[in-house]
């Protein structure tokens, strides 16, 4: 299963819920304001520990977040990569 989070980790509890419900083998893709959750020094970074996490590159660039600020081991994907992740998953859960 692919989990999508598009809200800031400080705006509601979407990232908390998504990361706590994820199973082994599930993936998490952070998009739009969700990409703020990938900042290493941020309070929300610990939620991503042990998870398979990707982040949408164009949304990072728009928000001025450089790659060196991200949690270690995170994958940056473009829109084509986003589509690949969706088609590779049997289901997609959007935590709107």
């Amino acid at each position, binding site marked *: 299963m692919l989990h999508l989070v*598009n*809200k*800031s980790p*400080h*705006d509601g509890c979407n990232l908390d819920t998504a990361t706590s419900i994820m199973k082994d083998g599930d993936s998490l893709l952070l998009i*739009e*304001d969700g990409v*703020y959750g990938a*900042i*290493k*020094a*941020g*309070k929300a*970074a610990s939620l991503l520990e042990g998870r398979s996490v990707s982040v949408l*590159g*164009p*949304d990072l*660039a*728009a*928000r*001025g*977040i*450089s790659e060196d*600020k991200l949690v270690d081991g995170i994958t940056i994907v*473009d829109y084509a990569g986003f589509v690949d992740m969706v088609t590779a998953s049997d289901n997609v859960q959007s935590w709107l």
Partner: protein
Amino acid sequence: MPETKKLMYINRKAPYGTIYAWESLEVVLIGAAFEQDVSVAFMDDGVYQLTKGQDTTGIGMKNFSPTYSALGDYEVNKIYVDKESLEERGLTLDDLQHLVWEDEDEDYAEKDSIRLVSRAELSEVLADQDVLFNF
């Protein structure tokens, strides 16, 4: 001459996920044209509005972040950034744009517009305002 009021615009939302940030910036610039005593505060996710190096070409939205550097020209030079909000988000002052204004009383010396403040300091500034606008 109408009375000058102390207006403060409080920004608490990230820049591109909603329209609040851009709308606020437009209202701040309009308000500044009426020669009021304007302050702007950035707290919670609002601190993300000021990050430097924003490049929106990949998401098809207008990058309005360069406009913040025009605030000084409109004599909007009291820009308060909440320190706790920055720290919680893993950011420092170095991650933000360097916003300045020119002080015409001191031979147009360039001065910093951003004031990094604690919650307690921000609380004092808030209490001193006549009108608060929230975005």
